[in-house]
């Protein structure tokens, strides 16, 4: 049962080409920084969508980014490990912690799930902020995290090299997630979202599927977190608090979670919007909040579903103009 993989493959190729073409157009450090942020956010939203695709909004997703980030930063600065090792170790730590946390959180569903994952995210944030200040840096943050360093004769310390590294990571992650989405696994996730009881009676172990997506998503979030730590070189517990988490929801939901392209469109649009609105600090979250509300009210399937929705609306308007006014009980 493989869905057609041609269109997704072409899309990934497009992202890869776009990412590769950017340095040919500009090497301005500001644009490279924005592009790196887009790719980092894209990695996060794609892994977040994986969980949303089973119908769960995991409010602790950003915390696993934080766990990866802090784990790698400490292993590099305290244990002297290489970034190239901690990149994977950090992601693994996030995935390993996701097993018990996911097992607990996924015992409940619906509104309880939002709340328990939010509780976990606050525990993690408060932990980084208030405990072991000598280790995590407390409220003033963890500073002095080195850049990745060299690998195979390449030095990763300039904006361009780091952009290239993030681009490779992002394309690999997107490729893997797109393949997953087209596989039986992706179909099952869709079935769980639409009718988990039906899926359960058809023999799908819903809990195990949800846990697998939770752990996989956390691994990818951890990976993005490690890059974030060594890219920004400073970590604050608030980097992984409610505000960036809501931003993640905005990125993912505005594009639409029904297809893998929703988060891609949403992340690129909203990261650019965020840069444009940066000057107007208070207006930024005002605009984002309003866009989120309007999208959920008028286009709950997201922006990528708008063409289809517009077509349906047009058909309805046409049907209404041909039918006599007030006739019938059509909803």
């Amino acid at each position, binding site marked *: 049962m493989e869905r057609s993989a041609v269109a997704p493959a072409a899309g990934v190729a497009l992202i890869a080409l776009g990412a590769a073409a950017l340095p040919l157009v500009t090497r301005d450090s500001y644009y490279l920084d924005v592009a790196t942020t887009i790719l980092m956010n894209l990695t996060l939203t794609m892994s977040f969508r994986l969980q949303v695709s089973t*119908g769960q*909004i995991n409010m602790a997703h950003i915390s696993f980014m934080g766990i990866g980030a802090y784990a790698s930063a400490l292993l590099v600065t305290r244990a002297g490990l290489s970034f190239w090792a901690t990149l994977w170790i950090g992601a693994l730590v996030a995935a390993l912690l996701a097993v018990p946390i996911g097992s*607990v959180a996924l*015992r*409940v569903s*619906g*509104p*309880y799930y*939002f*709340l*328990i994952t*939010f*509780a*976990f995210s*606050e*525990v993690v944030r*408060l*932990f980084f*902020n*208030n*405990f072991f200040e000598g280790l995590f840096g407390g409220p003033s943050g963890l500073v002095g995290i080195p850049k990745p360093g060299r690998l195979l004769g390449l030095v990763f310390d300039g904006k361009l090299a780091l952009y290239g590294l993030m681009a490779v990571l992002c394309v690999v992650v997107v490729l893997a997630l797109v393949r997953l989405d087209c596989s039986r696994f992706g179909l099952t996730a869709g079935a769980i979202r639409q009718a988990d009881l039906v899926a359960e009676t058809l023999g799908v172990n819903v809990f195990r599927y949800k846990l697998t997506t939770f752990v996989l998503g956390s691994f990818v979030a951890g990976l993005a977190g490690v890059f974030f730590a060594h890219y920004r070189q400073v970590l604050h517990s608030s980097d992984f608090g*409610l505000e960036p988490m*809501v931003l993640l*929801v*905005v990125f993912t*939901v505005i594009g639409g979670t029904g297809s893998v392209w929703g988060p891609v469109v949403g992340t690129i649009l909203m990261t650019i919007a965020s840069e444009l609105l940066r000057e107007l600090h*208070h*207006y*930024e*979250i*005002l605009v*984002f*909040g*309003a*866009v*989120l*509300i309007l999208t*959920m*009210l008028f286009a*709950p399937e997201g922006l990528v579903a708008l063409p289809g929705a517009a077509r349906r609306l047009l058909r309805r308007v046409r049907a209404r103009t041909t039918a006599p006014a007030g006739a019938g009980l059509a909803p």
Partner: protein
Amino acid sequence: MSIELLVQALLNGFGLAMVYVLVALGLTLIFSILEIINFAHGEFYMLGGYVTYYLYALFGVNYFATLVLAILTVGIAGVVAERLIFHDLRGRALNAFIVSLGLLWVMQAGAQLAFGVLDKPVPSAFSGVVRGLGVVISVERLVVSLSAIVLIVALYLFLRVSRPGRAMRAVAQDPDAAALQGVNIDVVSALGFGVGCALAGGAGGLLAPLFAVSPAMGALPVVKAFIIIIIGGMGSLPGAVLGGLLLGGVEGLGALFMGSAAVNILGFVMVIVVLLVRPRGLVGGA
């Protein structure tokens, strides 16, 4: 450690618990009627704080009259929010939750633009302390707690005795059956959302003199309210009171052993334990 110290710690913990119970009751009322988790609930609390700041601190209106006006204003704001935004999302938990995240940002940023980012101090309405049996309580906290208890009792009577209150309980139990009995669900939803927000507004008015008023002031009480309703069980009034007392007690005792910032983690640990052992909360039904 002396008994007095323990009692004092517990009293400190219980001190504001009833106000947070008020916030929690608003959340749980909205949840039981519309099946919506309103993450922006703290922003209605914040509105109550600003009403208090402008009327009481700036224009010198009587403290209790201000409180009533805060409750009414925020209640109306809640009805408007339900009609404009949440009405069509009734029963669609995921979408409603995401919308409430958006509303949280809109209201917080709106408050920053309208009222400024700086904290606004509200003077205390009462001074002095009450001493007895080796413990000390400030009169202000006593009045605030008693006012919160009065509001909780008023809500209980409203839901038990009055017609709209009973309609709300009917809709919470079974919307279809309630509609068949002639209950107007649209009106009850709007009213329920309004009453829920009004409770938050009242809590904001009560705590405004204790903490300064600011656009982000809603974050802490709403988090406490979430903890309370999870511990007590969503949709249960006695559960919320029990959850509030438990949270207050644990935080009060915890403050003896750890810093006040670190104490915040205890509530979340309780949430995780309760959800593991009894996912529907201590008093919650099926």
